[in-house]
């Protein structure tokens, strides 16, 4: 009996490995989960940043406490941002929740030009010219979108351009439940 056990050990090892490889096929090894989920949103660093301009609907960050809101990290240099932008425009038109833009390492003039050309869904835009605020939020590639709840906790993060499916299947239900 023990002979079979010894000789069968390599096979057993292989089967275990194969099982993990199978599970691995539907994982994305490049995607980094955010350690900020369910922790306090680092809003203080955003407060210290200069604004892109004085917007009519702009509010102070302290006024966002008690609201569910979206933070969208973008840049005029980012092609993925261009792809998701129409969806953000549509979302903003619904006036569902405020969307705050974080212009990441973007020249102000170019941010302006980009928004006036492609549409402006943002309640306000803060400019992270040195990249320090983005690091606080664990940003590693634009576009990234964060959902923050009424108690200033980060509840959801999406890396990469938003899609209709992500918005409808994941964001909307979560926003609805958080708003109650």
């Amino acid at each position: 009996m023990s002979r079979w056990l010894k000789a069968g050990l390599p096979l057993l090892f292989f089967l275990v490995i194969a099982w993990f490889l199978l599970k691995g096929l539907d994982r994305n090894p490049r995607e980094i989960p955010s350690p900020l989920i369910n922790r306090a949103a680092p809003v203080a660093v955003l407060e210290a940043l200069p604004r892109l301009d004085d917007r009519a609907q702009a509010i102070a960050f302290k006024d966002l406490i008690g609201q569910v809101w979206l933070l969208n990290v973008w840049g005029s240099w980012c092609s993925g941002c261009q792809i998701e932008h129409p969806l953000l425009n549509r979302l903003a038109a619904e006036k569902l929740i405020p969307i705050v833009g974080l212009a990441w390492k973007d020249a102000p003039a170019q941010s302006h030009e980009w928004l006036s050309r492609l549409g402006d869904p943002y309640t306000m835009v803060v400019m992270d010219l040195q990249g320090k605020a983005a690091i606080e939020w664990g940003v590693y590639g634009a576009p990234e979108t964060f959902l923050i709840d009424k108690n200033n906790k980060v509840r959801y993060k999406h890396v990469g351009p938003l899609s209709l499916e992500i918005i409808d299947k994941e964001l909307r239900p979560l926003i609805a439940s958080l708003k109650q």
Partner: protein
Amino acid sequence: MTAELGHLALALAMLCGICLAVFPSLGVWRRDARLMAMATPAAYWQLLLVLLAFVCLIENFINHDFSIQLVASHSNRDLPFWYRVAASWGSHEGSMLLWILMLAAWTAALAALSGHLPQAMRARVLAVLGAVSIGFYLFALLTSNPFERVVPAPINGRDLNPLLQDPGMVFHPPLLYMGYVGFSVAFAFAIAGLIEGRFDSAWARWVRPWTNVAWGFLSLGICLGSFWAYYELGWGGWWFWDPVENASFMPWLTGTALIHSLAVTEKRGNFRSWTVLLAILSFSLSLLGTFLVRSGVLTSVHAFATDPTRGVFILMFLCIVIGGSLSLYAARAHSVQASQAYSLLSRESILLANNILMVVAMFAVLLGTLYPLILDSLDMGKISVGPPYFDAVFVPLMLPALFLMAVGPLSRWRDTPVLPLAQRMRWAFAASLVIALLLPLTADSDYKPMTALGLLMAFWVAGGVAMAAFENMKTPSGAVDLSRLALQPGSWWGMQLAHLGVAAFVLGVTLVNSYEIEIEKKLSPGDVLKIEEGLSLRYAETTARQGPNYEAIQVRFELIRDQKVVGELRPEKRRYKASNMVMTEAGIKRSVLGDLYISLGEAVDGGWVTRIQKKPAVNWIWIGVVMIGFGGFWAAADARYRRRRVNSLRASPSDASSKIGKVSG
């Protein structure tokens, strides 16, 4: 037209593969010599057809046929000729065709050179190779057709990745695949042996040269990959423990155990189940590597464009081949019995330790490579396992192996008394200890224990080689006669060369890691930077340069030693026109004693942030591995394997002494 011709040739080649798998097996079952003999033409036709397919693919690349999907995505009108040829294997589909070509080549070579094998064994081995190739044909034809057309055809292609536009691309994949695929021969012999229940010395003697050659090629392929990464990627590293690098290193580790284990099986009849298992493992690891690179489960700088459907296919293939062979092993291993006894300290026990150490090392690399995937699959978060881990774990594992490397060749089979052995080795030990302790004192920097340890191991192994050579120069009566060395067989010379190569490698790694200097500084034209006593670098000028498919900014640096210009280096930043990718080309001044390595970072008003590295003895890393590879080839060229055995090894029902299969588990 050629694409369709190539596609047809590939499909026909698969038919040959099927014939190769089916008819000889039928022949063995029915004891029909004619059916068994069909293996030969099937193997030859298979090679011819695959070669035809490959030539068709290359022709499409050379002649810019952008209606072929592969050519459109990996080539360009401005791409130089040889890179167009190399681009044919620069993609997933093309490299699969290269795999198939290598497999067909090894199969045909085996068919041609195995006339002295018993017919049944030969038929089985070729049939196994045919069966394995069927899986690859199916994979290529069903999921990765290199001849896929794209409509409408673009006017110009997207260009080969600039990182691959290098002579390294021409040689590295073919060498590497010769190694990977070459292990399929040992694998086929192992399967055939398990089915027949026969693993005598003759079996081992047949397998050894094939395995040594495959292992030699794998060594050279890995060496070239490392050397290429060093000068191409632009930051002076030569090994990153990247998943794909590990995928080539793991079969090398078990392959090393295999060639040593085969020596024991041939000479003493021991370690049969080890040898069989190692043969299965080595090829399985080659296949696993193929999976890892193409399935998208791991991030790697080498990974091909990933596609989970392909991943599923390869995984199924892995389960059939590896699962099947390991099941066969589990079922039949008991029929493979060792015969001779040996003592606690003997060449057998040393080689057993070597087997175990190589397998443990392979396991450590496998664990580190797959661990992020394992944790992620269990929803336990995402971690990274990188060079700091592998360096910390791998080096301690290798120390015992290095120690044994000097002792092993001097030990005797069956029983080696400790005291005489220690006595013989005392000079080697003393010399290496003295060098290890004193050499670092001559250097400028702080004394590091790791440096001494590395030097000790390098000179210990070299000392072992010197002892072995010296002892073989002595006649039994004690006189020294140099010509006696010529009496040594190829396998002895190969072993000493390979071990010496290991010593050179360890020396190179130790010296580079201990004494390399790195300076990062913003430099402008006219600046002079002092690297060390008597050696400075002067930023002479910046020029713009046009390449065949890129434009470059080149900085010319002058190397000044004792106020005289002794050389110049020309690092560049290139922008490849088709892909708009920016590449850093390092400027390297090479010598046997070390390299001076300069790469440009960011441009800052008028100058560049420059990274200068002085890397002593770095070239010994690759010189050492080349020696290892050629050691493998030399051992395979041993005359023993080339003598035709006329009357000895025909399998016959009455040949019961070499068949151990009647005892049931």
